[in-house]
């Protein structure tokens, strides 16, 4: 769960950095570095759910 929260935060930060780069507020190299990490973040945020304990899941 903590990895997911970090990945969501970093994805949002990347979008903000890109906006900053278009406005000249952020160095382009920093925005490029952030943009290139997006698929790595997507590996975490788009990861399908697992059902390690289906009984627990269905009990809810």
């Amino acid at each position, binding site marked *: *769960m*903590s*990895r*997911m*929260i*970090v*990945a*969501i935060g*970093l*994805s*949002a930060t*990347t*979008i903000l950095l*890109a*906006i900053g780069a*278009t*406005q000249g507020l952020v*160095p382009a*190299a*920093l925005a*490029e*570095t*952030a*943009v*290139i*990490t*997006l*698929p*790595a*973040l*997507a*590996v*975490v*945020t*788009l*990861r*399908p*759910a*697992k*059902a*390690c304990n*289906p009984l*627990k*899941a*269905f*009990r*809810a």
Partner: protein
Amino acid sequence: MSAQETARSGRSPGFWAGLYLAVVAMIGALKIADAINGPTGFILMAASCGLLIPMVRAQNRGDCSSAATLAYNKRVIASSFGYVLGLGIAITVWRNYELSAPAVFAISLLPVLPTFGIVWAMARYLSDETDEYLRHRTTMASIHGLGLVLSVGILWGFLEMFELVPHVWAWWVLPAWAIGTGLSNLWQKVRGE
């Protein structure tokens, strides 16, 4: 997990994710400080993507992941490599050569096509997954992600039209969708759905 269990099963996914982010941060710092040039930075970035492989393997450890999830992970990792390589080549070529419009269009597709691969992997997962519960959760997460994209997109579009906010490159939709999907996964996990 005890130290003995960790030693038996290898490093945790968090370790590999942290290591990847630390390496990327170092490469970014070197680029900003002009200690390395752009192409070198992109090559190092592409190499650092190799750390995603042990991260995904660590995620898949145990018997919780379905066969569809394992196939999905392979496709997304392959697409991620393609994206990093494509973006690196596209930016390097665009900066160093005077290109015609068709050539710029062609190099623009280099990071785009692997991104289509990520979208295709998600669609393929939904058709491959035989567990109805997992498919339902992923479908709901995708719909919530789409809802976030549509809501933020329409809000930002009108704010931009009235010159309240700056222009944003349209590729923001994919990370925004991923954010919405991740938030939905978290929400469903917390609620035990």
